[in-house]
């Protein structure tokens, strides 16, 4: 009997979170193919929007897939290519970044970027009693970064929290380390750091330690990287919480899509994942020491 082919198109593992994404996609592929022998899952990765559009074409024209799970590099440029997959009669699941036109996808599994920013902002505002000086290390200048920062700024609006400056650290540890070093030389007083991402946060931690200013501030990252979760679990004062933005959402999406073909369950619709706050209390539930992320 013909196998059902599910194509999975995601960004290549060029930074920590995307690496986690790749890991979970591969794990899910193995797991699903083992469980359901009539499934063939094909994971392809791209280094840019153009390349991802190529991948989508190839999945349809040479692999002749039945369903597509796609985490778009960027929403806008991939809207039309995904639409074409849909028009070719495939079942489409979109993950994390919504398309610019409504009604293309059958399933939408959404992370929630503005929410991640909002939750982080709320926490910092509360913890600082509504006033203090903070710095922000942003990601790569993209929509995701924009949305997160906007969510964050909305959350602290009206409080006396002063954002000393924000710079792009590109979701990269080295950049996080260097930008934070410079913030530390520049600002004698910093009460909190929003690093937006756990990779950046790791760099920030080292910079703060080096400057010996661990006592004066705390850091909020994001995503749920195991190193940071571990710190939260251990009650590290520097990283009191983490905000989840789990790369495992790709596995969720693949599971849901697979259900469409292996069961009779109705799966169409929207699945929104919350931006869960990880604290010392619940950290254990989110700690997976064997994951590479």
């Amino acid at each position: 009997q013909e196998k059902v082919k599910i194509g999975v198109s995601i960004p290549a593992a060029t930074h920590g979170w995307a690496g986690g994404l790749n890991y979970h996609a591969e794990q899910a592929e193995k797991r699903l193919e083992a469980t359901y022998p009539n499934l063939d899952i094909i994971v392809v990765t791209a280094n840019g929007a153009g390349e991802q559009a190529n991948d989508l074409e190839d999945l349809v024209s040479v692999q002749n897939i039945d369903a597509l799970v796609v985490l778009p590099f960027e929403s806008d440029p991939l809207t039309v290519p995904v639409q074409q997959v849909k028009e070719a009669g495939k079942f489409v699941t979109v993950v994390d970044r919504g398309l610019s036109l409504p009604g293309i996808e059958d399933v939408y599994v959404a992370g929630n970027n503005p929410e991640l920013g909002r939750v982080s902002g709320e926490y910092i505002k509360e913890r600082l009693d509504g006033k203090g000086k903070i710095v922000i290390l942003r990601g790569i200048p993209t929509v995701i970064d924009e949305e997160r920062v906007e969510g964050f700024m909305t959350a602290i609006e009206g409080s006396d929290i002063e954002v000393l400056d924000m710079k792009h650290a590109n979701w990269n540890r080295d950049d996080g380390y260097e930008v934070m070093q410079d913030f530390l030389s520049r600002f004698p007083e910093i009460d909190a750091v929003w690093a937006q991402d756990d990779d950046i946060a790791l760099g920030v931690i080292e910079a703060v330690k080096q400057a010996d200013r661990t006592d004066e501030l705390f850091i909020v990252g994001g995503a749920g990287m195991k190193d940071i979760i571990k710190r939260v679990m251990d009650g590290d004062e520097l990283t009191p919480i983490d905000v989840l933005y789990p790369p495992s959402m790709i596995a969720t999406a693949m599971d849901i899509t697979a259900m469409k073909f292996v069961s009779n369950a109705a799966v169409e619709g929207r699945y929104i994942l919350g931006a869960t706050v990880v604290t010392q209390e619940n950290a254990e539930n989110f700690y997976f020491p064997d994951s590479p992320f």
Partner: protein
Amino acid sequence: MSSLERREASASPRFSIDFKALGPFMALVVLFVLGTAINDAFLSGGNLSNIFTRAAFIGIIAVGATFVITAGGIDLSVGSMAAFISGAMIVVMNTLVETLGPGLETVLIGIVLSIILGIGAGAVNGLVSTKGKIEAFIVTLGTMGIYRSLVTYMADGGTLSLDFEVRGTYRPVYYGELLGIPVPVLVFLAVAVAGYVLLNMTPFGRKCFAIGSNEQVARYSAIHVDRVKTMTYVIQGLCVSIATIIYVPRLGSASSSTGVLWELEAIAAVIIGGTMLKGGYGRIWGTVVGAIMLTTIGNILNLTDAISNYLNGAVQGLIIIVAVFLQRGDWRRKKSK
């Protein structure tokens, strides 16, 4: 290739001459055989058309790069120049929709703008490096950062999206076909033919070769070295703008990540095609084949599930090295000794 070997090569012209010209084609054939072996669908009309259409972007840019490199220069800014031009086109077309509507005029104005910007950006690269006497590597490294920043700034860190109605008007430029051949492929062909004619059949092309081969000799032969060099950058800019014109309707957007690393791909296509990085010798058809080879490698990797995605880059790297090794044909001459 050192001149000692060159001598040897010229001593047995029967082998070498054929190989030099045919090398890239043969490497491409090997790739096609590989692709077919991996998956039957490789040779399907749809897939081949996809490959050639994709090759068009990098290919068109690489045709321009052939001029720059032949004349002894280098342009690292093409990728971010493409992003910047896309961004500017989108912004302007979106603005025009309000007054002119989403019709042909809007698209045409966008296209004209793209060409003006491409030529202008190329002229900047050329003039700053020749008049300012700064290495082209540094100048274009600088403008690479500048154009990329500008598009990020225009997009406010996010993505610039073309109005959906304009996208409809503009669509055929990428998705259309003429005589069953996709429009981008036709454009690519036209650019390649024009590039070939310009490089090989006009005094201008001749001057590019001369400058790349020996600037001093060129100067002594009454060639306006600075002017010709600047012109190669202008041609490069023009090629980038043409590539952009067919790129924009494809994805209908531009952001700071548009065109990242295209410069490396374009230069790689040029070198794979047999043009010398040090200048003095360029080959448009080689470049065209080089661009198709690079695209084909990417396509082949999508044909199979056998290789871990993490290793894509390794396979790609290996294939590039082996392909160039095969096409240089030195292994062949060794054997024939």
